[in-house]
């Protein structure tokens, strides 16, 4: 029984760490990984999602519905941002970086002015299960499952649907896509809204576990960028999945044995080494390895 408890505890810690990284990076997978926009407003989009969920929850809307609503609201907000500002900066990486940073300041300070410095939080849904001396939050087990489902859904959308095909074409060769009759303008709009909506969705999913405040987005920025950049852009979804698993395998044992501080140090150090050795990210290295193997075969 003791052995089972320890094993389950280890798996639980690996899963929560990995799904935290993936949830933080979910919207950024689309906006940075696919569209190649360094979106520094990512944390604030998550914050908008968390605020939408919190406000609706306290008006009596059931929590799962508030998560859906957060997706819709932040996707619409993303569409407005794309139309008004972001689309003027496609292809200008540094320009996009500065403008999204500006958007992040406006969103967080604006929220502070309109809604004040905090909001009452959402209670964490469902209870706990205990095995031996350890007990586990059911909500985090659900979050892990939901994260896995979201990643699979995103992968299917991207690789198996016509919209996904148009999106990939638009991001790789916009001129040719346009020549073949793809409305690239609309594809850009849809992809950016999808990324924003996913950021809002994950913000809402994480809302019960964090304090709801205008600057709450900042805590997600570093994990989000690390996950997506370590994963690389060659196959962004598989990359992010691999990055979160790898980083969680580094962070979890160090964090458990030596504490949260050294766990974070280990995570950042691992990211540093991986990016030094594989500058295009895990997915590019994996792709090269696979290509070589298929050539040999």
């Amino acid at each position, binding site marked *: 029984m003791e052995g089972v408890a320890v094993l389950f*505890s280890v798996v*639980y*810690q690996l899963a*929560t*760490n990995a799904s*935290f990284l993936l949830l933080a990076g979910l919207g950024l997978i689309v906006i940075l990984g696919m569209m190649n926009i360094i979106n520094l407003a990512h944390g604030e989009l998550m914050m908008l999602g968390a605020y939408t969920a919190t406000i609706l929850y306290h008006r009596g809307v059931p929590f799962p519905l508030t998560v859906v609503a957060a997706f819709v609201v932040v996707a619409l907000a993303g569409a407005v941002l794309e139309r008004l500002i972001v689309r003027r900066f496609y292809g200008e990486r540094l320009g996009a970086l500065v403008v999204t940073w500006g958007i992040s300041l406006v969103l967080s*300070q604006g929220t*502070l002015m309109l809604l004040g*410095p*905090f909001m*009452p*939080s959402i*209670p*964490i849904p*469902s*209870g*706990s*299960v*205990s095995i031996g*001396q*350890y*007990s*586990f*939050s*059911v*909500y*985090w087990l659900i979050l892990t499952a939901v994260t896995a489902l979201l990643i699979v859904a995103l992968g299917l959308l991207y690789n198996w649907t016509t919209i996904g095909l148009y999106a990939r074409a638009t991001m790789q060769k916009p001129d040719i896509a346009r020549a073949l009759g793809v409305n690239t303008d609309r594809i850009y709009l849809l992809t950016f809204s999808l990324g924003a909506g996913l950021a809002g969705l994950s913000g809402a999913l994480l809302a*019960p*576990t*964090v*304090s709801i*405040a*205008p*600057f*709450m987005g900042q*805590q997600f920025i570093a994990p989000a960028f690390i996950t997506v950049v370590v994963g690389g852009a060659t196959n962004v979804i598989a990359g992010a999945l691999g990055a979160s698993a790898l980083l969680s395998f580094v962070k*979890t044992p160090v*964090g*458990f044995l030596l*504490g*949260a*501080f050294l*766990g*974070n140090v280990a995570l950042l150090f691992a990211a540093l080494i991986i990016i030094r050795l594989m500058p295009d990210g895990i997915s590019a290295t994996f792709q090269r390895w696979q290509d070589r193997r298929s050539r040999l075969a």
Partner: protein
Amino acid sequence: MTDEITRKESPTTESKHATSSALETDRRTLLKGAAAAGGLIAGFTGPVYLRDFNYTQSVRAQTSEPVKIGFIEDESGNLAVYGIQKLHAAQLAIKEINEGKTLKGAPNIGAGFHASSGEIANTPPVISKEGSNLDIVGDPGERHQSELLYEEVSDILVDSNDRGILGREVRLVSADGQSNNTVWQQLARRMIQQDKVDVLVAGFASAEREAIRPIVDQAKQLYFYTNQYEGGVADANTFCTGPVCEQQVIPTVQYMVEKFGPRCYTIAADYNFGQLTAAWTKAFIPLVGGEIVGEEFIPLSVSEFSQVIQRIQAAKPDWVMTLLVGSNHHNYYPQAAAAGLRLPMASTVNMAQGYEHKRFPAPSLANMHNAIQYQMEVPTARNRAFVKRWMEMFPEDQYIGEMAQNTYFTIHLYAKAARLAGTTDQETVKKALELGWNIEAPEGSVFLEPGTHHCAHPIRLAVCDENHDVSFVRDWPVVQAWWLQRLGVNLIRHPEYKQYTPAEDPYFNMFVKT
């Protein structure tokens, strides 16, 4: 009003006031030393004791211009949950000062007695017949466990016979530190050099205080730090009016070990406050038969605690010492509750400051213990009156925390000291403060110990139950901030500008088992 009149009037009115309040004290209390102290205070008819004060200079400085109270707190960012309460406290205190009100209290001139405005109960207390404890039945028939012969005064706010400070309006010059140490330094420079504030009241996190203290010292700025903190600041320009480790950690740890068992797991914020408070816990716990089975420092940016919770469960402690700071860290409580971690908890900061028991759904904070000096639930008549005044001014506010109350009485204390000094000249006010002051705050009687610039406070052990209601299970009428005295700090005779750490006192590793 000309300068001439100001000079003549203000010291005399003030000394009359001081004399009469001392005489009242003498009549009302049972303390024999009061007469002597009254005599000393009566010596203020002319500024005899304060004869070193440079009156010509201070009178020249005295105009009808407002007295400027510089005030920096975090109104946004990770620490805003505390900063806004403190801002409201300052606004309330300044409004009262401008309306001609003050808190009871007087300088002690070294006599060092407490509770200067306690009143004798109308009928003598009787010891109850049933029970072997010393039950004291008070006036309306309720039972106390206390042997104090004073009756709690119903309110502590009295007339100051002054409008503002020395007839000058008091104005708040406030700015938002944005939970960012660099911004704090810029703001401190601006307030001192540009706004030329008469007093600076600022600082939540110890890192913020240490960021601005060199700037304060360079300008010899009179500075009040009103927060509960880890202790050890010995700075001739700084007055620390919040409680420190020796006043809170020791009562808390003693109670927890007695009630729940010896094994303690500490999780603390990873900066000077958390590190040093954890060092106090570690140094003291062996003396009451406890031990630290795990200690973990958590960066302020961490908000996800699943792994920390698993580590705590692996160590099997009897109780957890949580020294968590900021809205990121506060997520620990709901996360621990959701993960089924139901261990008793203790703290010196949580609940009393960030009112986690009001912000998070029950039972996240169930079984939390904190030896507080103040929190909104303190069950005294004077505190209820204070809470009522506050809520009339700020009806939207959810809570009044420890450091908000400190800010409130500190600004009143400054006003009293400046009135006695007859000027807002900073060096003179510092000297007036170094007389040693007794002030009646909503928490109870506070004594500003002149040599170390720290305060003796009443301490109460607050416990939070399953429904997040707070009750008080132990009561220490006065706990001294004794550690700096032990180290031989006397800022009046030997001015210093440093912060002592436990590493400089052999006490801290005397009992630790290695």
